[in-house]
């Protein structure tokens, strides 16, 4: 595992994520807080990145910028060949639905929908027919090993199973990039390992690039590269 954050991956793989001089500032009343300071960050395609750091280090902010959930105050950002900051809100939403898969810590699923229906959700934004949506959702559930539970509601699933359904939803539109914010934070050790196995598999076998924010050292172990942030800057070990 390469710990040098500034090492640029030489080789055939191109960079799926490139940040140059990115700064993110929040206004707290009259105070200006620089959460990210002049950050350079690249992620080669097919990588499994872990982002770690103390509370307030800016790791979640970095994730939000990469995922197109937020825009930088200054600097340049390219993700999956596009510049999300240059898009309008509506265009960004569309871009997210096609290019990014989301895995959050908790409450990812809509409690009133079954597992299958939850996985279908991102496909509602496409022009696919109902039958086609269901088929793809089923495939995604098969990949994560929960096909037999597709008719279950979230309350009928364990924490680990819910996260697997979340991952199925994240891959159902076949995005290049998966973004995970503390995916194992709420799980017991065994379930957490299952999830991490799954993520590793998706990364190695399907070539999905994964950027994961985590506090869990065991999770960080699974990544191909570990990045540490502190006070808005990448720490060089």
């Amino acid at each position, binding site marked *: 595992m390469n710990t040098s954050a500034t090492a640029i991956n030489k080789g055939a793989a191109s960079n799926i994520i490139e940040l140059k001089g990115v700064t993110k500032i*929040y206004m*707290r009343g009259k105070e200006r*807080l620089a*959460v990210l300071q002049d950050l350079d960050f690249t992620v080669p395609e097919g990588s499994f990145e872990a982002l770690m750091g103390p*509370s*307030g*280090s*800016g790791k*979640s*902010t970095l994730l939000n910028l990469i995922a197109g959930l937020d825009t930088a105050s200054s600097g340049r950002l390219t993700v999956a060949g596009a510049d999300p900051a240059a898009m309008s809100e509506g265009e960004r939403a569309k871009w997210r639905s096609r290019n990014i898969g989301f895995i959050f810590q908790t409450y990812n699923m809509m409690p009133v929908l079954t597992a299958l229906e939850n996985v279908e959700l991102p496909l509602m934004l496409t022009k696919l027919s109902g039958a086609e949506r269901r088929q793809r959702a089923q495939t995604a559930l098969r990949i994560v090993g929960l096909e037999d539970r597709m008719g279950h509601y979230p309350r009928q699933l364990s924490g680990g199973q819910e996260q697997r359904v979340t991952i199925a939803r994240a891959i159902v539109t076949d995005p290049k990039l998966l973004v995970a914010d503390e995916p194992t934070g709420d799980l017991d050790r065994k379930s957490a390992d299952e999830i991490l196995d799954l993520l590793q598999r998706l990364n190695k076998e399907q070539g999905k690039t994964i950027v994961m924010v985590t506090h869990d050292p065991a999770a960080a172990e699974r990544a191909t590269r570990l990045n540490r942030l502190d006070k808005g800057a990448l720490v060089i070990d």
Partner: protein
Amino acid sequence: MAIPFTYNLRSLFVRKATTFATAGGIALVVFVLASSQMLSNGIKETFISSGSASNALILRKGSDNELSSGFENKFLNLLGAAPGVKQGADGKALVTGDLVVVLALDKLGAEGQVSNVQVRGVMANTFEVRPQARIIEGRPAAPGTDEAIVGKGMLGRFRGLELGKQFDLKKNRPVTVVGVFEAGGSAFESEVWVDIETLRTSFGRQGLFSSALAVLDSASKYDAFEAAVESDKQLGLETERERTYYEKASEGTAMVIQGLGMVVFFFFSLGAMIGAMITMYGAVSQRTREVGTLRALGFSRGAILVAFLAESFVLALAGGVIGAAASLVTTAFKLSTMNYDTWQEVSFSFTATPGILFGAVAAGGMMGIIGGFLPALKAARTSPIAAMRG
């Protein structure tokens, strides 16, 4: 990392909106309750102030109201001689006779519409017998002339009923309005008064009265008066206290309004209480941790119950005060409607009393307590462990 505060502010506002919606609902209900009671009260007041407890109204036996009653001239003197009748300054008995008719006149502001106006033919001593009536503009109508005075409640409602204007008592019999009178807010203010002889000849009722009014020495003299009048079968008359007559005259209409108001209020309040209940349930679920902490600190279930009840009570009370205050606006308006018992169009105002207002506000508070009871119970049942849950 800094937390943006915008979402905190927004959630607070949403909570404020919820609070406002609940209080608003109760305010509306209280407004309707207070207003309908004020109207019903206004009707009663209008009619009750028309009659005094120490006056006796005389009608022909069997008639329900002045319109259907009629008796001859000659009986007036006999009435004056009855026991208990007060004497005027000139030594004559304070008794007067009226002829009451209804006249169709054009309404102002409603083209082509005609409505019934009560016209009272009065004798010269009418103001002596009815001291609450006073001329406020112009002068009294001179006896035996084609002159009339108009009650102030009639102004602006009918064509010709204005100082200086004329209206027809019958074809080719115009009458000129020479004065405006007020009568203590009573039903008389919705009448037109003319000389009784003028009215008698116009309506072909020569020598007839509809009713007579006798002023008694005191209210306690009434029983003796009644006994004297009604025991004489030759007279064929019946009498009752003037106040009682007017109370009965307004009963029907006042009851309908009060009845309607109460029915509407009943259903309304159910709706508002359910609204309050939903809000309080929401507040309770949101504050489970807070309540759990209080319990862990040692506050009893009863204390929690009371606290939440107090919260919904105060919320509802605030709504009630707003609603009651708003209802006072109605006192600026007059409502004219037909009094079903006497077929005349009378104007009523909304009359507020402290009792009505406090009662309405209290009703609002009660709605808060009833609606908030179940949620408060739920809060009281919160276990201290809830404080530790997320």
